[in-house]
């Protein structure tokens, strides 16, 4: 039997601390057995020779290797200085209390392990266990920052601190999707997702280390250009024009997407990725709001047409800057409320987390689109023909909307009204599994990270989706409703990776597309299964 890894092993140099062997991942059912022997493609030596890659089979950040022992030492002391700041009120008032409580009260009972989809589907790899990284951080903190720590470490758990420890810990903080499923089952209330979040912050806020997709091309670009997609305001308006034309074809009437309307009731914030990848989602919102006679607007101001806030995953400073921008745009437009479109992390960022950041007239009321849409769909003003959605539908619960915000039923009440063949996944609601793309994973695909995501972190979701449709013939089209851009991105990727459209008839999309698809009076269906329309006009 192989020796189990211990938290202290993270400090011991080796080429690869943890490798997933063939056949170790949770098995997939037919017709996907051919993936059961799949492993993560080994990265070419020339690709990784200058970066830290000794944690496992993939690389999320790609931290440059220090050039000398002196540089290593400097990085170690930077790390310690950052760790200290995590426990200071001036530096970390945002999460100080939750962090201290979670650091001090873990009983190491392992109840959380079975709740973690990554740990479970990876073949129970020790480094992915929820408390592995927490315990590494806890031991470093106690040993190197607490008085007498070097002596008590022998009694409370020892660990060595060197560059290997730090580089691996940084990478390891990007092997958890911050789904917080582990936190819901902890009998004490300890939150390993939170500890992981704080590790990411330490690296970003003190050492400037973060995956480029979420920092450089993410939050920095968001603040500089206006959107993490790189789209400026003009390009956003152009896409909207194109969307309007498309929507006209579907509805048979002119659909207006209003921009910068001062005093509108609602400022709708979309994840700008929708405009590029799923423009029909933006169009569907426009049709619903127009048909319901709602006073609404989009904002063309930089950051105002992109609801994302990547800071939520790794950096409180970047988080605050984006949140303040969003609120300030709404304030100047004098809208009554902000409605957040189908983007899970944007929901939690602006509604829940920023609630303890925005004061005075920046504290504009904020509402989930799930709620606004429920009010419209169930309000009786619009007529629906649910038989148009006569295909099996299941619902994915984005962690940020459901587990972190408690918005569980509105989307279900809508589906019960418009999708006669709706069925739940098991488990669902606040006990859902993450899509595997949470906390930035959906947009990270450098090196071979995308493959790791498809094989490991999204695996549980894929199994759940297959299971939800197990009683349906393989060749009929099925719809996974994922009311979140990042979740949709990961579900798109697993559908492609496992050829699930061909093998199981899997299709995916948002909630508003289903609403429009069943809306009475449409000239054409909004949902198509490949070339096939979901209903005949």
């Amino acid at each position: 039997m192989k020796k189990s890894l211990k938290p202290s092993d993270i400090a011991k140099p080796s080429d690869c601390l943890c490798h997933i062997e063939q056949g170790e991942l949770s098995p997939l059912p037919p017709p996907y057995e051919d993936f059961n022997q799949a492993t993560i493609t080994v990265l070419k030596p020339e690709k990784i020779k200058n970066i830290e890659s000794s944690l496992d089979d993939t690389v999320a950040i790609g931290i440059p290797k220090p050039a000398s022992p002196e540089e290593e030492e400097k990085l170690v002391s930077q790390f310690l200085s950052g760790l200290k700041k995590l426990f200071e009120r001036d530096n970390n008032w945002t999460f100080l209390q939750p962090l201290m409580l979670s650091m001090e009260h873990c009983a190491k009972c392992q109840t959380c392990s079975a709740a973690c989809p990554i740990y479970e589907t990876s073949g129970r790899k020790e480094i992915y266990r929820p408390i592995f990284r927490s315990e590494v951080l806890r031991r470093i903190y106690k040993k190197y920052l607490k008085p007498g720590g070097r002596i008590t470490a022998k009694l409370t758990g020892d660990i060595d601190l060197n560059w290997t420890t730090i580089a691996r810990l940084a990478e390891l903080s990007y092997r958890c999707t911050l789904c917080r499923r582990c936190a819901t089952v902890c009998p004490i209330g300890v939150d390993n997702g939170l500890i992981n979040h704080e590790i990411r912050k330490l690296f970003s806020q003190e050492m400037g280390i973060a995956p480029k997709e979420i920092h450089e091309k993410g939050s920095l670009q968001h603040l500089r250009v206006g959107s993490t997609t790189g789209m400026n305001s003009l390009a956003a308006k152009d896409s909207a024009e194109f969307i309007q034309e498309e929507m006209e074809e579907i509805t048979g009437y002119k659909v207006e997407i209003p921009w910068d309307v001062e005093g509108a009731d609602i400022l709708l914030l979309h994840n700008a990725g929708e405009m590029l990848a799923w423009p029909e989602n933006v169009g569907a919102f426009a049709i619903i709001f127009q048909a319901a006679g709602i006073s609404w607007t989009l904002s063309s101001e930089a950051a105002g047409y992109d609801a994302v806030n990547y800071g939520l995953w790794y950096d409180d400073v970047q988080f605050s800057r984006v949140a303040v921008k969003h609120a300030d745009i709404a304030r100047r437009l004098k809208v009554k409320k902000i409605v957040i479109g189908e983007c899970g992390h944007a929901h939690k960022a602006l509604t829940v987390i920023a609630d303890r950041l925005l004061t005075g007239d920046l504290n504009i009321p904020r509402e989930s689109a799930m709620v606004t849409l429920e009010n419209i769909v169930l309000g009786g003003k619009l007529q629906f023909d649910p038989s148009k959605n006569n295909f099996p539908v299941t619902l994915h619960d984005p962690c940020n909307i459901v587990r972190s915000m408690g918005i569980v039923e509105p989307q279900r009440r809508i589906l019960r009204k418009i999708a006669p063949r709706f069925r739940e996944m098991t488990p669902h609601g606040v006990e859902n599994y993450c899509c595997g793309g949470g906390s930035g994973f959906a947009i990270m695909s450098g090196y071979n990270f995308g493959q790791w995501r498809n094989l490991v972190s999204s695996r549980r979701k894929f199994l759940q989706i297959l299971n939800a449709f197990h009683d349906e013939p393989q060749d009929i089209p099925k719809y996974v409703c994922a009311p979140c851009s990042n979740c949709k991105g990961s579900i798109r990727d697993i559908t492609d990776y496992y050829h699930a459209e061909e093998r199981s008839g899997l299709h995916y999309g948002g909630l508003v597309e289903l609403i429009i698809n069943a809306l009475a009076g449409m000239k054409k269906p909004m949902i198509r299964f490949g070339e096939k329309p979901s209903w005949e006009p």
Partner: protein
Amino acid sequence: MGFYILSYVCIAVFIGATGCLIYRQITLPLHVRWEIYPVRHETTARVAYGGSYMEEVNWWNNEYKSSHINELKYMVPEILFLRGLWKENRSLWLVSFPFHFGMYLMIATFGLLLLHAVITLGGFPAFTAGNADEALLSGLIAATGWSGLIMGNIGSLGILYKRLTDREMRIYSSFADYFNILFIFIFFLAALITCLLGDPLLEGAKAYTFGLLTGGHSPHPYVPGQTVFGRTTIVLASLLVAYIPLTHMSHMYMKYFLYHKVKWDDAPNQRGGKIESAIMRNLDLKPTWQAKHVGADGQKSWHDIATSAPKEMK
């Protein structure tokens, strides 16, 4: 008298250390919301599936409500019977439940012993040895004491066994973890032996508790310090009281903060309210994070930084 001094010191350490733990928690700055659903003080309809007040249209126009009854409905079985563990980790529950319940029963026994001592001290004529009220209280003391000791012994031994034999738990267990549980087991064992060897009605414990209130005077000829097991029990019980708040075992009561101040803290920030004032104080704090994009210099506040562009962009 030496035993009493030790007990007084340990009780003082417990009060001091617990006070420090609580003081530290209540003086921390208000943190951002990080609740996780189900939030148990939600309405009955919503708590059933983990919903929140944010499921309502224009939720900010409604009064923020928090149901203590629903919270209790969850908390009481959670604290008493470890319902979460029963659901999520049954094999650990089998040893953890008797351990925790044994502890609660010991705390209850101590409470009853104190009550007995106070009434005895009060010199109520109706409460003399052998009469009905005294017999009832003594019976209760014996019942809670014995059941606590039996459950505590089974539970602590079971946890020790599980920690030693379960691979997952062993990897993460340190010397301190084994020490803690062994310490508690020896206490339970010593106390059980003391009772078994001639004090089935916990007369020694009654006398000792009375002595705690009177600086060592005891109306009773038998005090537990007369036997080696009795002495061990007093020493270990006293040390345990002092030791708990110094370790993660303080989760027994610090769980309050983990649940109420983090997991279930969903109170919305309202303009002009207390939360808003606390946020404003936080925004005046001055960070010193070193990464370039932060742009902190120890002079700029969170407010300045949040309303400025990252350095890389300038």
